[in-house]
Structures are given as C-alpha cells and as structure tokens.
C-alpha cells in the first residue's frame, strides 16, 4: 500500500518525467549491458537516451568516466538498429570532447559513411568530423570530397557543414575542397546551396577579388535557397562597406542593385535582410532608403509578431539617421503602440518619439504611461533614452517630460534604470536652465527614498554644485541635512560636502551651515567627521579665495597621475615639498562627449541591450580619462625624453600628408613646461620598401632650440613607427607661436613584397616633403573647469595682472561662430556653460579658464556684440603678465 502511495506521489511530482530521478552512477553502471550479445537494441537505446539526457541537463563526466562510456558505446556497432545507431552517433559527438582516444572509432564511422544506408551516411560524416584531428583528416579527405558532391542532399550538407567546422582545426586542408564546394553551389537542394556558399565564402574571404567574383557570379544565377540569398546579401553588404571605406566605387551600383532587387524577392526573410542591409549601409541616401522603408512599413501591419518586431526595430534604427524617411510610417507605428508584444510597442513608441512633432509629444507620453509598468527594465531604459533625446529636441516640453520622469523615478526599478532616469534629468537640467528648479526638486524628492548609494551620492554632488546658484538655495539644505540624519556613511559624507558648497557660495546661509557642520563633527564615521571638520575650519576663516580654492573648485589634476606622482615622491624622499603643479591636469571632456557619453551610446540607443550599453559607456569614460595620461605613458618609455619633466598638454593628431600617399605622417604636439616635443607617427604604405633611420627634420622659427631628435630605427610595410623631435621653447613667449617646415628623411631599402626582407643591405637616402606644423597658443594651454567663474574672476581682480583689448572679428557673422572660434583658438575651457549662446541675443559674454604651461593661471572674459560682424572685448587676467600679453597679442 505504502509503495503504491509513493508511486503515485512521485508520478505527481515528476508529472510524467521518467528521467527525473535517474542518477549518473546508476546509468553508467547500466552501460554494461552494451556488452551483451546479441544487443537488446530497445533497452540500449533507452540507456543511451538517459546518458544523453543527463549530459544535456549539464551533468559533468570525468575523463575516465567519459572514456569508459565511450568505449561501451562503441560496442553497439554490432547492432543494426537504425535508431540505436543514430543515437550512438549523438553519443560519440557529445563525448568526443571529454573522452580520450576517440579516434578509435574512425574506421567504423568511415565504413558507415561510405556504406549504402543513407540514414547512416550523413550522420556518420558529422560524427566522424567531430572526432577527427588534423593528422587523421588526410586519411578521410578523399571520402569528404566525394561526400560534398554526393547526390543525396543530406550527405552533401553534412559534409559541407562538417568541413566548415573543420576549418577551425585544419583550414588549409579544407581550402583544397574548394572545387567540390563550387560544384555543390549549383546543387538543386536549397540547403546544400546555402551550406556550399558558406564554405566557399569562408575559404575565400581573405581574398577580396575572389569574393567579388563569387558575388558577381551568384547574383546572376539567382539562388534558390532564401538562406543562401540572405548570406549573399550579407556578403554584398560587407563588400559595399569595405569599398566605401577604401574609396573605390567600381562595383557599387551592381552590388547595390542586387540588394535592392532582393526587396522584391518572394521570401519575407530575404526582403527583410535586404531592407536591413540598405538601412545599415553607411552612405545610404534617402532616395535609396525609400523602397526599404516602404517594405518595412508593409511588414508593420503583418499578423506575425516576429515580422512586426523586425520591421519596427529596423525602422527605429533608421529614425536615428534619417528621421524624415520614417515619418511616412508614423500612422502604422501608432497602431503598433497597443501591440500585445510589449517589445514591439516600446520600439514603436521610441521610434515615434524620434520622428514625431512637438504637438504629438503629450499624447505619446500618455500612451507610454499606460504601459510603462508592464515592460522590463531593459525596455524602460530604452524609453528613458528616447525621452532624453526628446528633451534635447523640444526644450519647451520639459515640464511634461520632467513630470513623467519623476513618476518613473518613484516606481520600482533596478539601479541601472534609476541611474538612467537620473542621468536624463541631470542632462535636462544642464541643457535647459528653465527646467533646473523643477528638476532639482524632483531629484531632492527622489533621494528622500533612494536605496542606491551611488546614485544618492551623485545627486547630492549635483545639488551642491547647482543648488547654491538657484533663487532659493535654502530650500535644498533641508533635503541634504535629512540625508545626514538618515543615511549610511558614504551618503552622509557626500551630504556634508554638498552643504559646504552652500556655505562657501551663499554668505547669508553660512552661519546656519556652520551649525549643521558642527553637528556633523560628532558623526560616528571617520570620513564624515573629517570632512565636516575640514569644511568647518575653512568656512570659519571667512576667506573667499580660500573657500573658492578648496571647496568650490575641487581638485583639477588627473587623479591617476596624482597617485603616481605621490607614489614617486614617497619612494624617493626629498626635502622639497611636493608640488601640486607638477601633476598633469585632468582632461576636460569636450562638450560633445558630455551630451552623448559616447558615440556608441547613441548607436545603442535603439538597441535593447543594456549590458552592451553600459559597457560602451564605461569604455568611453575610460578613454576620456586623459589623453595626456596615455601619451605620458608612451613618452616615459622614450629614454631620451624623460629629462623634460611632466607632460603638460598633448594636442590632437594633425595629418601632415594626404591619407593616400606613400608615407602617411601624423603629428602630435606635446608641451612640457620648457620644451616642445613633436611626435611624428609615420606609416609606410609601400610593400616593396623597408625604411630605416626614419626621422623628421624641422626648421623651427627663431628662438626655438633643437634639443634632440629621436629617429625611428626601422619601418616595415604597413607598420606605424614614431620619431620624436624635442625643442626648447623660446624665452620670449611671443616667439613660441610659429610655423615649422618639416621634411621626412629616411634610408630606403628595396625589399620583397611577399617576405618583407630587404633584397640587399644597401639602401639609399630619400626624403619626402611634409606639410608645415603650426604651433599655436592652444597647444600650450590646458583646459580647466571653473564651476564658479565669477568668484575666481573677482578674486583674480586683486592679485592677477590684467590686460584688455578690443577686436573686430570680421570673418564671422554670428555669435555662435565667434564663440566657437575663440574657444578653439585659445584652447581654454568655457566656464558655467557660457559657450552656449541664448537664441535671439545680440550680445554675449564668454568665460574661459585655462593654465599656461609652467602653471600660470589664465582667466579670460570675452564680451561679444553683434553688429555687422562681431566685436569682441577681451579681458585677460593671468598670474604672469607675459602670458596675458601673449594671449591678447595672439588673438589679434
């Protein structure tokens, strides 16, 4: 009775899974019956199934276990049962990677492969190729070649697919099967055609000419298999893109016509692939895009969810580059908003947000609100990104969007999702001064109930930066002080720092802040106490400049460099105090990088992959950490240049040749405190030449002294070598700006293009004229971010020397252009976002901050007025009169 009950219970639990309770050891024991003679095929099949099921469930077999099982299985070759034999092949394939000595079954499998039973042959080929290695491959090569051109499509496919797998271990052998693959492309079977094309392309992909020929031939013969056509479209697409980047256009139109003609193919798969390719082509024009978009539009109303998904996802991508082209589909997209598949609905909405007009924003937001709680975080992030783009596009809609974002902020969600919302609100605040107060209020509310420490810290920092300059700074204090009472240590520390910002910037709040800071000195956490004490004592001094330097501005140097410099300092103790000025300044990210965290971030916009997104952001940040950092690292490795001191600033690379010439040279200008180093990156594009002792001869203007030349000893074909020239800056600052004539000099040795080895040891000297190198003022100035320019300017009024001049900029006609020119020319950082000119104004003031090499601060105020050209009044304040003089004279 009991047993019966248990059975029943098990049955219920396992709900009919007969494999649920099997155990590895028991099953492996059972394989003993494989040795019985005659073989009980039914029983053996069942045991084999169990083994495969266990492996499939992720059970691990040790090498000995696997080998034993493998050999037990090989016993079953005596049975002629079809299913058992097929299961054996599966078992062999599964175990081939774990077991040892698997090649033992080669001959049995070869027999099956060449036998009469078609059901065995295809599967035997695949099993054989999974156990074979390079040395054994020779033995079966003949059979493989035959199999590829076999009349039975299954056999042929199996051979082709297996040979593609084999290219990983024996690419050269497979290359010899190209003729057979060529023949198989003409097969009647659709799958054989597809597989043959895959093999052919793989063999030839490194040879562009051969690929071109292949495509030309196949586009004419109209393949039967839709899969093969898709593959062909991809190959054609790749050729087009490569041609695009290399500048050739020989077969552009034929290839493109082929892809375009596929839009009228009878298979939807092919139509979509073609549309997708056209959309993704980098240089597609809107005319070329039109047929692809109309095909996708048709798909939007398909009853198949997958088709709709594919279409709307591709349209979303188009909307990023050609929003106008998608407007035609707006009606279809709006129908998709209510799609039962939330992914489709979300994509439709974000596409609409990208293409829509200002008037439709309210309606769309309402629709999003109706389903936003039902979609996954990944999609919510997509929506948030679309909203961010929208805010930048229609700044006037900020109140609607901001309300929506704050509602989203209050909902449940992961850190990444919340962070993306906070990011968006921060972007809106920065872009749109009108939205600042409401945005800050929303963020304040959010940190009241925020479980993510990192996010709370960021928002507190932002409040500290932006809060003091709002109309009513006092209202934020309460929110910040609440954090001090309620949160964990890192948040408390951030809150203390934020409060001190208010203390430093708003004198009327100072007494209250001091009281709060005094209370924080009683905190239980060391860091919080330290910060509170530090800020309290600075603020107590009531010294504006002190507060400015140590509270408002923060650290300007690059943190990794500071760390390294301090480390150096501690291991070689000296009596000289550590000089902060010797540490390179942190790079200021350019405006574009701030708006779009990275180029990739924008691309990923329409994509639904959050992991890829965050990854790209991280890498972008890492890149911007400091260009100087990476160059400094490189320059440190050149022993001749070490003595010059810390690197101050590196310029962007400048091309000194056309990109298609024999030798391509780029120049990067590195400024050191007293020296200028020109780094020439040279690329040899001639495959029959080996260059030696490559150097660049420069003719510096008067005043410069040539200190060193570091040639590049050897420059083989298609490699980049670097030569350096170090010069000492003239004492007279005015003479530092000038033009250098440059000539590339080298020793040429003719060499064999194939091996790259020189024909003889003798070479001849040659030279190559380069374009001139300009050294400008901007090369010698490092950007500095001033968060409170006004205070710094005031303070500089007393101690710095000031020069003023008026200029008329006749070449520019708008304020925006003038601002851009002046910022680029001086190479300084605009403070307080003064580089954005409000619309419709006829005058504007730009604040710029920078440091001249040697550590002289420069502050520049440029008042611009628009009247038949632009008139500029430039006021320069600097710690060094010569520098101020240089700036004013250089502008003229």
């Amino acid at each position: 009775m009991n047993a019966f009950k248990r059975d029943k219970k098990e049955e219920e639990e396992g709900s009919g899974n007969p494999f649920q309770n099997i155990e590895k050891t028991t099953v492996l024991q059972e394989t003993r019956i494989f040795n019985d003679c005659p073989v009980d095929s039914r029983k053996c099949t069942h045991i084999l199934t169990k083994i495969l099921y266990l492996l499939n469930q992720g059970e691990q077999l040790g090498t000995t276990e696997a080998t034993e099982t493998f050999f037990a299985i090989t016993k079953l070759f005596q049975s002629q049962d079809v299913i058992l034999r097929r299961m054996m092949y599966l078992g062999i394939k599964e175990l081939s990677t774990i077991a040892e000595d698997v090649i033992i079954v080669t001959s049995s499998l070869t027999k099956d492969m060449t036998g009469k039973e078609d059901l065995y042959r295809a599967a035997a080929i695949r099993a054989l190729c999974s156990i074979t290695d390079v040395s054994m491959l020779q033995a079966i090569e003949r059979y493989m070649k035959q199999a590829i051109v076999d009349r039975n499509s299954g056999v042929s496919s199996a051979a082709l697919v297996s040979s593609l797998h084999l290219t990983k271990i024996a690419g050269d052998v497979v290359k010899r099967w190209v003729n057979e693959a060529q023949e198989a492309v003409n097969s009647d079977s659709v799958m054989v055609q597809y597989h043959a094309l895959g093999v052919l392309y793989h063999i030839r992909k490194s040879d562009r000419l051969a690929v071109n020929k292949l495509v030309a031939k196949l586009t004419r013969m109209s393949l039967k298999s839709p899969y093969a056509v898709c593959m062909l479209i991809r190959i054609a697409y790749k050729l087009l893109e490569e041609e695009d980047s290399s500048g050739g256009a020989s077969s552009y139109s034929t290839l493109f016509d082929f892809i375009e003609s596929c839009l009228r193919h009878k298979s939807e798969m092919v139509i979509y692939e073609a549309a997708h390719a056209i959309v993704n082509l980098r240089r597609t024009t809107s005319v070329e895009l039109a047929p692809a978009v109309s095909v996708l539009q048709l798909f939007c109303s398909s009853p198949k969810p997958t088709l709709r998904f594919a279409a709307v996802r591709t349209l979303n991508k188009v909307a990023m580059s050609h929003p106008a082209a998608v407007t035609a589909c707006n009606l279809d997209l709006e129908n998709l908003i209510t799609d039962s598949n939330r992914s489709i609905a979300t994509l439709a909405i974000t596409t609409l947000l990208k293409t829509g007009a200002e008037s439709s924003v309210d309606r769309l937001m309402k629709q999003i609100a109706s389903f936003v709680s039902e979609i996954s975080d990944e999609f919510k992030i997509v929506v948030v990104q679309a909203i961010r783009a929208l805010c930048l596009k229609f700044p006037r809609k900020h109140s609607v969007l901001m309300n929506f974002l704050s509602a989203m902020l209050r909902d449940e969600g992961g850190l990444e999702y919340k962070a993306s919302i906070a990011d968006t609100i921060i972007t809106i605040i920065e872009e749109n001064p009108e939205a600042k107060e409401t945005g800050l209020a929303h963020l304040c509310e959010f940190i009241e109930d925020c479980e993510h420490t990192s996010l709370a810290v960021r928002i507190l920092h932002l409040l500290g930066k932006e809060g003091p300059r709002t109309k009513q700074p006092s209202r934020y204090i309460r929110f910040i002080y609440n954090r001090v009472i309620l949160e964990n240590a890192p948040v408390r520390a951030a809150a203390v720092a934020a409060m001190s910002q208010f203390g430093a910037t708003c004198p009327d709040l100072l007494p209250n802040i001091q009281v709060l800071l005094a209370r924080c000195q009683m905190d239980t956490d060391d860091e919080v106490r330290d910060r509170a004490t530090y800020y309290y004592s600075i603020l107590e001094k009531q010294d504006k400049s002190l507060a400015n330097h140590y509270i408002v501005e923060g650290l300007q140097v690059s943190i990794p460099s500071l760390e390294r410099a301090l480390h150096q300092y501690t291991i070689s103790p000296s009596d000289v105090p550590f000089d902060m000025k010797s540490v390179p300044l942190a790079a200021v990210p350019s405006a574009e990088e701030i708006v779009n965290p990275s180029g990739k971030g924008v691309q990923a916009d329409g994509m639904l992959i959050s992991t890829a997104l965050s990854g790209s952001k991280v890498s972008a940040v890492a890149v911007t950490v400091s260009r100087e950092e990476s160059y400094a690292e490189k320059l440190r490795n050149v022993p001749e240049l070490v003595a010059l001191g810390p690197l101050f600033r590196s310029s962007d690379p400048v091309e000194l040749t056309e990109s298609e010439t024999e030798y391509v040279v780029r120049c990067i200008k590195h400024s050191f405190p007293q020296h200028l180093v020109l780094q020439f990156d040279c690329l040899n594009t001639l495959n029959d030449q080996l260059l030696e002792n490559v150097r660049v001869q420069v003719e510096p203007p008067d005043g410069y002294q040539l200190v060193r030349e570091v040639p590049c000893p050897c420059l083989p074909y298609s490699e980049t070598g670097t030569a350096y020239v170090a010069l000492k800056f003239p004492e007279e600052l005015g003479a530092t700006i000038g033009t250098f004539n440059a000539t590339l000099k080298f020793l040429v040795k003719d060499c064999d293009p194939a091996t790259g080895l020189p024909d003889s040891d003798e070479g001849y000297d040659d030279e190559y004229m380069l374009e001139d190198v300009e050294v400008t003022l901007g090369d010698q100035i490092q950007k500095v971010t001033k968060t409170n320019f006004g205070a710094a300017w005031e303070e500089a009024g007393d101690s710095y020397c000031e020069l003023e001049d008026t200029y008329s900029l006749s070449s520019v006609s708008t304020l925006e252009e003038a601002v851009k020119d002046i910022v680029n020319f001086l190479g300084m950082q605009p403070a307080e976002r003064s580089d954005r000119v409000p619309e419709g104004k006829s005058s504007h003031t730009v604040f710029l901050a920078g440091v001249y090499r040697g550590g002289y601060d420069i502050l520049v105020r440029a008042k611009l007025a628009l009247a038949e050209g632009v008139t500029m009044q430039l006021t320069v304040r600097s710690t060094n009169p010569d520098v101020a003089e240089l700036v004013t004279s250089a502008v003229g």
Partner: protein
Amino acid sequence: MEGLLLEPTLYTVKGMAILDNDGNRILAKYYDKNVFATAKEQKTFEKNLFNKTHRANAEIIMLDGLTCVYRSNVDLFFYVMGSSHENELILMSVLNCLYDAVSQILRKNVEKRVVFDNLDIVMLAMDEICDGGIIMEADSSAVVQRVALRTDDIPLGEQTVAQVLQSAKEQLKWSLLK
C-alpha cells in the same frame, strides 16, 4: 551605425531549448562557447527567459543580448536563440521547423509526457535541425524523414486494437479542433 552586420557566416543559431511548464529544461543546446559557457549560466538564462515569456504569448523577445523566438503548446515551450543582430525571420523559420518536426514526431500530441516517451527521436531531430550553430535543415518533413520514425514500420495489420483506436481518436480530435 551599429549595424556592421556580423561577418557573413553560417553560424546563425546560438541555442535551442525545449522547456516544460515550470521552466525546467527538457532539452537544450547552446552552440556558442561565448554565450553561456557553463550549465549554471544556461539554466539561469532559461529560468529568466521562461519567466518573461510563459505568460506573454508574444513570439519574440530580446534578452541578455540575444534575440529569442518562442512558441508554446500545452505544457511545452520551444525556444530558438540568435545574436541580437540576426535576421529574426531566419530564427523564426528554425523555430517553426523545430516545432513542426516535434509535432510530427509526436503525432500532434505536443505534450511533455509524450516528448519524454520519444526523447531519443526528439534529440535526433534537434541534431538534424542544427549542427554546431549552423542550420542543417529547415524543412520539418525532411527532418522527420531523416530521423526515421520507429512506429512507421509497423504495418496497420500488426498494430494492436488499442493503438488503432488511439490514432483514430487523435485524428478525430484534430479534425474537430481545426
């Protein structure tokens, strides 16, 4: 643009799975070593996938950087996964092939219990559809033909009365359902 479609290749399918109605794996295969290398990662992904799909009958979803198409019947869930750049329709054709092939093998009784009864044949079918990520065959009848159904070779005369009745019942059921 993000496009830069993948390198043209035959390696299209990243994985195939058949799950039961609790999200447990019945059979699953992953073909790319860079995608879910360990069984643990695979099962976490499957759970996650199942949670997101078992209620919404929506056919397609993007998850963990993969495009997943799916289809369900009674207590079975069929999935085919491909890279996020993959042509969704190609994946769909593979899924349809998988589903139809299994359905034909199980004589339209697409249920968990029946799958377990024919697990060997279903394994063979999955192997015939996709080999190491390359689509081997996308026509379900060709797949079924290649995996050689066992009961096919029992002529009608030798089937038991129960078997005949059973198949007659099924035929009736399906003609009514249509």
